């Protein structure tokens, strides 16, 4: 069974000190480093006391997955291998998590879709696996370009879903993510999403925690369900397997367990607020126009706000960091003064705008766009143009629009 003494302050085999995560993330000195998003994932994993990482090549996460292989070769990861497909990889991750390991993997686009059957199973089995999703197109014809449509499919799996804007978010959230996921009253998988290429392949200054500090190891005996390692008594789980029963008690069991999974998503709220300092971040919410976005669209929104300021137009910003649990109350509060709510998105269907519309009063205030997809970038000018049109102002015609 788990050691009862604390390991904080002791060293791992690489000489890193197991450090109280709050101190490591909030009090330890930070070193500015110029890294790509993929390299940042590697640096976060170096400090994550990860037991098992399972990899599979798919653009744009391949580099990160391979870099973690280097960490394994250096002795920072317990075990690492390449699986045969994303479906298999996510099942291998499940097997490792059932066996009590802290597990990490990365995927993207079509890989996320191929593996989809696993995700509700992860949540239902209460496996706190962390999966990085470097979003890319899932449409046909084949595309490897950034596009966030796959996030829409993850929202109803029972996983925690966070959407990082920058590499700095990524670094901090990978480490903090385990702290939220592994809470006994949560114990759920986390899909930590970012926009592929924009975050993974661009270099940015990221403030790193000391490389000689690492997270305390995962304790599988804090799980709300037994760890499958034959270290606790194996008892008959149920008299009759519920799968075969068409009766009320069977339905009620399934229903209550699904409700419990979603209640656990809700219970993650308090931990997430503590670690991420809120599910959203806001600026100038007293403005009439507010941009509400997640991921890279937030950065483009910031640029648009700067351009609008030059013209004397004041515009607020809501950065949604966490999609599950959904920050409904926070968004309602932040947008209560807004006459126009602009939701720029990197996908064709506008799933974020739909979520927001379902959350706030007077949802006709929501402008579901501008939207780009298929790998297109989102110049801040199109956000500016959208806002000016809403305000009844003349806008310059944008190239390619033909107007």
């Amino acid at each position: 069974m788990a050691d009862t003494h604390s390991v904080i302050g002791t060293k791992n085999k690489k000489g890193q000190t197991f450090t109280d995560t709050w101190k490591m993330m909030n009090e330890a000195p930070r070193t500015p480093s110029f890294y790509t998003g993929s390299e940042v994932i590697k640096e976060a994993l170096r400090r994550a006391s990860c037991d098992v990482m399972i990899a599979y090549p798919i653009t744009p996460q391949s580099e990160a997955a391979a870099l973690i292989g280097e960490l394994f070769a250096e002795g920072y990861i317990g075990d690492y291998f390449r699986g045969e497909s994303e479906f298999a990889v996510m099942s291998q991750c499940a097997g490792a998590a059932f066996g009590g390991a802290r597990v990490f993997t990365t995927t993207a686009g079509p890989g996320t879709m191929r593996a989809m059957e696993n995700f509700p199973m992860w949540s239902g089995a209460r496996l706190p696996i962390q999966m990085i999703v470097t979003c890319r197109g899932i449409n046909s014809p084949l595309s490897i370009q950034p596009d966030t449509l796959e996030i829409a499919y993850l929202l109803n799996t029972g996983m925690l879903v966070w959407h990082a804007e920058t590499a700095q978010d990524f670094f901090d959230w990978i480490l903090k993510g385990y702290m939220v996921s592994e809470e006994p009253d949560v114990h759920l998988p986390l899909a930590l999403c970012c926009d592929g290429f924009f975050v993974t392949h661009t270099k940015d200054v990221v403030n790193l925690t000391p490389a000689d500090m690492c997270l305390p190891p995962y304790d599988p005996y804090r799980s709300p369900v037994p760890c499958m390692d034959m270290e606790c008594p194996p008892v008959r789980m149920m008299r009759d397997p519920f799968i075969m029963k068409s009766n009320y008690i069977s339905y009620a069991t399934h229903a209550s367990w699904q409700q419990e999974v979603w209640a656990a998503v809700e219970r993650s709220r308090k931990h997430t607020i503590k670690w991420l300092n809120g599910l959203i971040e806001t600026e100038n919410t007293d403005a009439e126009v507010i941009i509400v976005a997640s991921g890279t669209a937030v950065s483009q929104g910031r640029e648009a706000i700067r351009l609008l300021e030059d013209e004397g137009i004041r515009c607020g910003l809501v950065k949604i960091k966490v999609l599950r649990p959904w920050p409904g109350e926070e968004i309602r509060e932040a947008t209560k003064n807004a006459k126009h709510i602009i939701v720029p998105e990197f996908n064709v269907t506008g799933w974020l705008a739909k979520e927001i519309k379902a959350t706030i009063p007077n949802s006709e205030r929501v402008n579901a766009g501008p939207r780009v997809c298929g790998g297109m970038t989102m110049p801040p000018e199109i956000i500016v143009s959208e806002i000016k049109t809403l305000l009844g102002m003349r806008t310059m015609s944008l190239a390619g629009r033909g107007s």
Partner: protein
Amino acid sequence: MSKERIKISEDLYDIMPSDYQDLVKSATYGKEDRGWKDIGNSKELIEQHSLCAGCPESMAFRYILASLPNPEDTVMVGSTGCTSLVFPMVAVHNIHSLFGNQNAIASGLKRALSVRFPGRTKDVVVLAGDGATVDIGLDMTLQAWFRQEKFTTICFDNELYANTGGQESGLMQKGFVAKMAPVGKLFDKVRLPEIARESGCHYVVQCTVSKPSLIEKVVRNAVMIAREIGPTYLQLYTPCILEIGKNSMEGLQEMRDSEKPTERFAYKEYISEPAKQLLAEVAAKDKEKKAAAKQLASQGA
């Protein structure tokens, strides 16, 4: 897990379910020479099952659970199908997650247990039907063998999808008329034992479950070899009496008929060189132990 761990606090003894009390009192955890003969004399590791009366799969389940060399440190992985009706009643940790991903789950599990318990034996045994092993899960079955994952794969071959009502499967015989094979199956029974050998399995056996002593032997061998050397595979004929039109008491005869030398379930075995060496070492040790015991007994007399 030591047997100590399942002991019940005296204060709580009377409120524990009787099957748990039995497990503590008379299960064969930790007994080195446990085997099929314990059935009936000890608490079985399978409490009860909801399979059809006379189902050969239920016999296979009992023999396998009685024969695992190290149940107190064994984790089993199942898949969707008739086997998943039994696993909730099995007294070793077991995992059901999805249909067909059992060898992927077992790969991750075995590696996690190796990372977490270095220097300790933690056996992993997969037990799934032929649909899970050969059709929907074939990719993951083979890839685990290619990677030389150190666990045992057991396939309950009933030559069809039993739990969903008797549809064609890859291990079905050619020509058999079934649901989804309305004019008879058009291609041969997949030759998974041969494929297993070529894929890197160190111990491959195909047989029926008509003889408990044989199942005891092959299960022990398969688990020991998987623990020390690499992947092992057992393909056991467990006919679905319901779907082939037999009565409850006819399962055993069906297996005996099918294991004759010219039939499709004639005993077939492959053992790699390193596995042969290991088995020889184990046999030598057993012999030594028996001789020592005999000597001790004669001295005592």
